[in-house]
């Protein structure tokens, strides 16, 4: 009975939503015009990067804060006592992972650099870095992380702190996160480098802290 009610309710919701989507929506404000008009002042050439790091920098600042918060809560939730896994390690996998990891780092740097003028940027680069770490962990080359030491803590928080420092430093210029157009490109690149490093470490940490063993003291 419950299944039937929920399923038919969801179906009705989907039909209503699709009906609303198919109606030509009158758009009150066209953001494409606003973005295109301000592209020259943004410091980058790709509109998505300009929106992410300049026009709507608040979103990105809060996003890295949310990621950091999730990681802190995961660290605070404690170590499992039931975790026994047999890790399949074959030499072919390990060799391929050793070959792939440096290439992935190069790809991450390229994505970071390309974000200024084509699709790419800090998030994609951070995801590639994190997947390199996860790949090395799954092939048994990188042990899972225990409680983070000082260096790792600085690395995890660097992106957020750099972003916050830039935002606070610009308060003297007027409002929060309003870059002067002349230095906007350099500031965005600085923030993106910090974000890439921290995002890679945080996303890898979400996996590697979760997969730690209580008896693993490496």
């Amino acid at each position: 009975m419950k299944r039937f009610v929920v399923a038919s309710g969801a179906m009705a919701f989907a039909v209503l939503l699709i009906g609303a989507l198919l109606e030509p929506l009158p758009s009150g404000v066209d953001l494409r015009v606003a973005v295109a008009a301000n592209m020259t002042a943004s410091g980058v050439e790709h509109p998505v990067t300009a929106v992410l790091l300049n026009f709507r920098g608040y979103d990105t600042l809060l996003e890295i804060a949310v990621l950091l918060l999730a990681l802190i809560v995961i660290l605070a939730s404690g170590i499992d006592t039931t975790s026994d896994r047999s890790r399949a390690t074959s030499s072919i996998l390990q060799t391929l992972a050793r070959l792939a990891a440096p290439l992935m780092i190069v790809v991450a740097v390229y994505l970071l650099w390309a974000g200024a003028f084509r699709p790419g940027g800090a998030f994609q680069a951070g995801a590639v870095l994190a997947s390199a770490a996860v790949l090395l962990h799954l092939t048994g080359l990188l042990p899972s992380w225990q409680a983070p030491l000082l260096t790792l803590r600085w690395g995890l928080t660097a992106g957020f702190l750099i972003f916050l420092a830039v935002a606070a430093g610009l308060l003297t210029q007027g409002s929060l996160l309003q870059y002067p157009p002349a230095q906007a490109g350099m500031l965005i690149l600085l923030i993106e480098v910090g974000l890439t490093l921290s995002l890679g470490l945080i996303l890898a940490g979400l996996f590697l802290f979760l997969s730690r063993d209580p008896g693993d003291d490496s």
Partner: protein
Amino acid sequence: MSSGLLFACVGALLFAMGIAGVILIGNLLRRVLAFNVMGSGAFLILVGLAQRNDVPDPVPQAMVLTGIVVAVAATALALALVRRLHALTGKLELPTDEI
């Protein structure tokens, strides 16, 4: 129908399937998955509607990029809590309280 609208309609279907899954499924791992299906539906609607016209709107795309990263963080947090519950009670379902 343009391909953008088709994406948006598929997103609406995914969202509805995700809602039904979150309500109906008791197993927490599958419920987290259903929640992710819901999120993917919302992202598809945003991206699909952003490219209704010829020039895609960059603002929803940037919002989806932000949303994906936050969804990853939320999923990892949910999985950590599920693992903790499994370690404490040995079950993958929320305890039902009888009233």
